[in-house]
């Protein structure tokens, strides 16, 4: 296979926002000489370089305010860059907000034509796709009703089905994939998969690690307007998580200053070991826990997720009637998960200590990880050893 041609090329892109603190004429005149003091500017994006080849699905992730939506809008041409340039080719459809341009007083039919035209379809093409659009949205009986009478679910469904029928080469998506009820969401995801197989390029902004992990073949992590990672999705999600974690700790520190005490229960370390046989694996988690200030009760909670952030299992010790130690000092606790039939891959354990009332004593996201080498037949999240019988 030959090298895929580039569909979007972002070169040294920077974007500066200027925030004026004074909006009224009076304030502007009064502060005329000191205008500079009365405005703030910050760089939403700094020196971004990005080449997106045809047919790839790129996930843009980052914290709130990291510049990912700004980058998406700049690629879409909605925001002009301060310096640098964006070049692209092919037909673009931007799904930054579902139903942008829907007019509440018009019927669903009128709005389909209008919205399709906004997304770049000609009238003839819309005529051709119209039945498919209505069919996909599943609101045939309401198509000649004014959209102001639609439920919010119907509204986004119609908007989404217009958007996926415009035959784009490049689709920009901002946080809008999770719309409608579950069957409709499944339909959306199937449509996205179809888009991928048809070689369309998708650039996706999402907060859901799950979604990014399952859809994207490349992840770009933005932090304060700069690219901190570009490439492997699993690695990207890990970096993003670490970033969240660092932020949380910073916030925690700010809190603990006022609390100024050591937590009653504290995780010193967690180790995960696996013991695999042909059929399943046993996972052993060895905790070392410091008890500084015994409370009425405490317990251990943990979740397991795969490298793409997909949540696989969670538990707490409260239902197990275990007799955890509750005296001051260092204790070791072992949790064994027997007969785990997970597919091959690397997994992450998040764990924490708390009580049943919901008070957290300590939290360790990504406290340990383990690898499952494999066995079983086929690929997937679970390990299955199928048999075939024929008569």
């Amino acid at each position, binding site marked *: 296979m030959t090298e*895929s*041609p*580039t*569909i979007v*090329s972002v070169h040294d892109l920077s974007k500066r*926002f200027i925030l004026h603190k004074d909006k009224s*004429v009076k304030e502007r005149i009064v502060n005329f000489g000191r205008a500079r003091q009365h405005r703030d500017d910050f760089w939403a994006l700094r020196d971004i370089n990005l080449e997106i080849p*045809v*047919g790839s699905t790129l996930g843009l992730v980052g914290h709130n305010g990291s510049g990912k939506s700004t980058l998406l*809008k*700049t*690629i*879409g*041409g*909605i*925001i*002009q*860059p301060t310096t640098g*340039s*964006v*070049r*692209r*080719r*092919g037909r*673009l459809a*931007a799904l*930054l*907000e579902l139903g*942008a*341009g829907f*007019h509440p*007083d*018009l019927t669903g039919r*009128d709005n389909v*034509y*209008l919205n399709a*035209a*906004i*997304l770049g379809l*000609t*009238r003839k093409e819309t005529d051709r796709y119209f039945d498919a659009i209505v069919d996909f949205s599943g609101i045939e009986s309401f198509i000649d009703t*004014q959209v102001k009478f639609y439920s919010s679910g119907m509204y986004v469904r119609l908007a989404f089905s217009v958007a996926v029928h415009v035959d784009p*080469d490049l689709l920009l998506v901002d946080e809008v994939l999770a719309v409608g009820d579950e069957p409709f969401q499944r339909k959306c995801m199937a449509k996205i998969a179809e888009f991928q*197989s*048809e*070689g*369309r390029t998708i650039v996706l902004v999402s907060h859901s690690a799950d979604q990014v992990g399952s859809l994207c073949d490349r992840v770009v992590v933005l932090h304060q307007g700069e690219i901190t990672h570009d490439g492997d999705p699993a690695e990207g999600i890990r970096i993003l998580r670490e970033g969240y974690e660092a932020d949380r700790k910073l916030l925690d520190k700010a809190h603990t200053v006022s609390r100024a005490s050591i937590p009653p229960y504290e995780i010193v370390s967690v180790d995960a070991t696996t013991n695999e046989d042909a059929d399943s694996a046993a996972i052993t988690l060895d905790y070392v826990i410091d008890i500084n200030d015994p409370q009425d009760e405490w317990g251990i909670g943990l979740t397991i997720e795969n490298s793409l952030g997909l949540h696989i299992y969670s538990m707490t010790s409260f239902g197990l009637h275990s007799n955890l130690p509750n005296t001051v000092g260092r204790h070791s606790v072992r949790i064994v998960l027997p007969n785990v039939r997970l597919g091959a891959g690397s997994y992450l354990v998040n764990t924490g200590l708390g009580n049943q009332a919901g008070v957290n004593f300590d939290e360790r996201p990504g406290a340990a990880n383990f690898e499952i080498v494999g066995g079983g037949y086929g690929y997937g999240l679970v390990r299955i050893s199928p048999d075939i019988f024929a008569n």
Partner: protein
Amino acid sequence: MSASPADLRAQRIATEPLHTVGQQTRFLRGGTKSVRDIWDHRELLGLLVRRELKARYKDSSLGIVWSLVRPLAQLLIYYFAIGQILGAAREIPSFALFVFVGLTVWGLFTEIVANGSTAIVTNSGLVKKVYLPREIFPLSAVGGALFNFCVQLVILIAATVIIGEIPWHVDLLYAPLAIAVLVVFSTAIALLLSALNVYLRDIQHLVEVALIVLFWASPIVYSYSFVHDALAGSWLEELYLLNPVTLAVLGMQKAFWIAGSAQGTESNWPADLDIRLVVALLVSLVLVWLAQRVFSRLQGNFAQEL
């Protein structure tokens, strides 16, 4: 071996040239690209105009008739208050028709400027979320205003037939010229103000006030001969005639107000009205170009200012 749709797509895209996103901001050039961009979206422009008209009169039982009520009410007020009570009708033959011609032209100008200057702000939902050549929003206001104007024009022509003053003469050629001047000039203003209004919302209130004042700066409820008598060819009269809206009103009156020509006195129109109109059209075209260039300069920051 047949290529998969994905490969075909990749091959097709590979042949397309990469183009820079966004409008060119160089001041003098780039105008043609903008025009081409707008032309590519002409279908959408039509839909937006229709959306405006449909949405405006949806759910009202009289619908489009309402677009006529306002000018007719104005006509009645001016006819009685200025024509009969203040006595302007004595000097101006077919006063009702005269006023209606002026009001039709003025209504077009007001609608384009008032709706056009708020067009970007009212469509902020679209401006922030989708890339379109933003000029189409003020232009769709122009389209909607033109539609209302056409309805009124039909009424106007019907009225001339009913009162037996059918304007079937050479001077009717002034009408398209006058309309062209008015549309081009007001489009320039709408483009410029719609962009400025994003940064300074005071513009839209200023426009309201300015339109009230400017109404009296054109010979709509009084005839040009009053102005001519009062200013008597001084530089003030020339200043008065520099207003393209005034010229458009005069042109339309020359086309549709037959009684004015029959009156015999030439003072109902200034000399060389045709040349003045042509010059005004050329100047307005330059203004549209300038306004569009300013617009494209300012539009880069629309999405973040709204």
